[in-house]
Structure formats: structure tokens, C-alpha cells
């Protein structure tokens, strides 16, 4: 396999984010993130993304993730005693519990938004919400999917 450069990977990622990748380019990306040990730090989040997309792929190496974390973390560290913060947090929590007014029950609302119009129609809002969830939880209507498949051409 020819060595894919990180510059080329960035070009392919741009195409991926525009939904323009060919299957071959997609495979190059997957292979790159799967097998490259020493990832540039700006590409590490993409490696995590491709790892989610393909469970068989490796997640970024521990070293790479450490390097990414180190970059995100502050560079200096010193030991700070925790007890003053714990005490302050306890006092603040006590004050919030004792002094806070009783919580009001969250207001009910049901809004549908169709064809650019907002409708305060509870039944319609529920219908749209239920249809969306039924479609997702049934992973689409299988009967409809079969119909689409057999009538595709």
C-alpha cells in the first residue's frame, strides 16, 4: 500500500465532510486512521470519529491520545490542598438547599412547526413526535424499505 500523506488525508477529510468521497477514498481514510500510529494531533479527533463508524477499527493509540490530552491540558501543575474548596462547596450546597425557593413544576408545552409556520397544536405536535420516534425505533418502515429496494430502478 502506498504511503498516504497527512496532507492528502486532510484533502480527503474535506471531501468526506462534503459527502463527496468515493468508496476508494473512504477506504484510504479508514485504513489511514486504523493503521497510522503517529497521528498529527489535529487528526486525532477524526480517528475517534472513524473508530465509532467502524467498530472493527482500532481507536487511536494510547500514546496519541496522551499527546492530544497533554496539548489540551494546562502545562503547569502544582499540588493544591483540597479541603478549603470542599468546605466552601459544602457551605454553598447547604445555602442552596436551605435558602433556595421551592422549584416550580416545569411548564407544559407542545408546539409543531410545519411549512414555516409555528402551530400551538398539541395533537399535531404529538403526532409528528410519535411518527419520528416510531420511524427511528423501527429503523424505518421495513415494508417501505423493501418497496424502495425492489422499485429502485
Amino acid at each position, binding site marked *: 500500500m502506498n504511503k498516504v500523506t497527512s496532507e492528502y488525508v486532510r484533502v480527503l477529510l474535506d471531501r468526506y465532510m462534503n459527502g463527496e468521497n468515493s468508496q476508494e477514498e473512504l477506504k484510504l481514510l479508514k485504513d489511514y486512521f486504523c493503521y497510522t500510529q503517529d497521528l498529527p494531533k489535529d487528526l486525532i479527533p477524526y480517528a475517534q470519529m472513524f473508530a465509532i463508524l467502524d467498530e472493527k477499527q482500532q481507536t487511536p493509540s494510547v500514546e496519541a491520545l496522551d499527546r492530544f490530552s497533554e496539548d489540551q491540558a494546562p502545562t503547569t501543575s502544582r499540588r493544591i490542598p483540597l479541603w478549603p474548596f470542599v468546605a466552601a462547596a459544602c457551605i454553598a450546597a447547604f445555602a442552596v438547599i436551605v435558602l433556595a425557593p421551592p422549584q416550580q413544576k416545569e411548564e407544559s408545552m407542545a408546539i409543531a*412547526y410545519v411549512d*414555516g409556520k409555528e402551530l400551538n397544536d398539541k395533537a399535531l405536535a404529538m403526532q409528528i413526535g410519535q411518527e419520528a420516534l416510531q420511524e427511528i425505533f423501527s429503523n424505518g418502515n421495513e415494508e417501505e424499505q423493501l418497496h424502495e429496494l425492489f422499485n429502485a430502478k
Partner: protein
Amino acid sequence: MCMLLSITSYVTAQEGLQINEVFEGKILDKEEMRESLIKGETLEPYKLDMLHTIKFAANSKERAKVNALFIRDMEDRISNDDSNMEYESRDGYIYYAIVQITDNKKGRHRYICYQCRDKSDYYDITLAYMEGKASLADLRKTFKKK
């Protein structure tokens, strides 16, 4: 314009999520969406406190953007366990996902859901955000078509 902003202004629960950009109409115009936002006692039978759904047709570029945002939110999932997450990907893109994401509020669960159906010249995308006491098993039982 006021109408365009109204639903968005009600919603704060999705703050911090990447897909909020889609709900807010930053990827696609909200006028192109079919949307529902429900909070409170109407959802009690479903053990939910909040439900926000949008459905829209997207081109390849829009689909890729929504896909990337959703995947970034998936990184906040509770675990890879079946009881917290299910998803399917093909050709480098998510086609279907239900993911329980972390929540700091005790006893409350949060879910993000996504479905993308390839309609050959466009993509039919459904996104949902839910909050409540319902487990993923409860939701499957309630909403899965028999």
C-alpha cells in the same frame, strides 16, 4: 422572523450538544423542517419530560455535516453496551442510531436519535432529542412498530 426564533428560544436542554446546530436551523433552514417540541405532562405516559424532533430532506453535503455533528455527540455516550446504544453505519456514514448520553441530573436519562434514509437523489433525515426517566428498553417497547 419572530416565528423562526420562537421554537429555538424555548429550547435550552440541548445546549452543549453539537446537533443543536441542526435543531437551531444553522445547517438547514428551519422552514425546510417538520418539527415538534413537547415538554411536560403530555409526555408522562412515555416517562419523558421533553421530546424534540425534526425531519428534513438533505443533500450530500448537509447529510455529511449532520453526520459529523451526531458522531461528535456520540463520543459523549454512556457506554458501548447494547442497553445504552444501538447504531448502524454504511459506507462511512451513520444510517441509524439511538444513543444514551451522559447527564449530570440524577434519575434523568438523555437520548439522541438519528435516522438517515437514502432516497437516491436526497437523504431523508430524522433527528430526535429526549429527556426523562424512560430507559432505552422502555422507549423500544413504546415506539417500536410491531
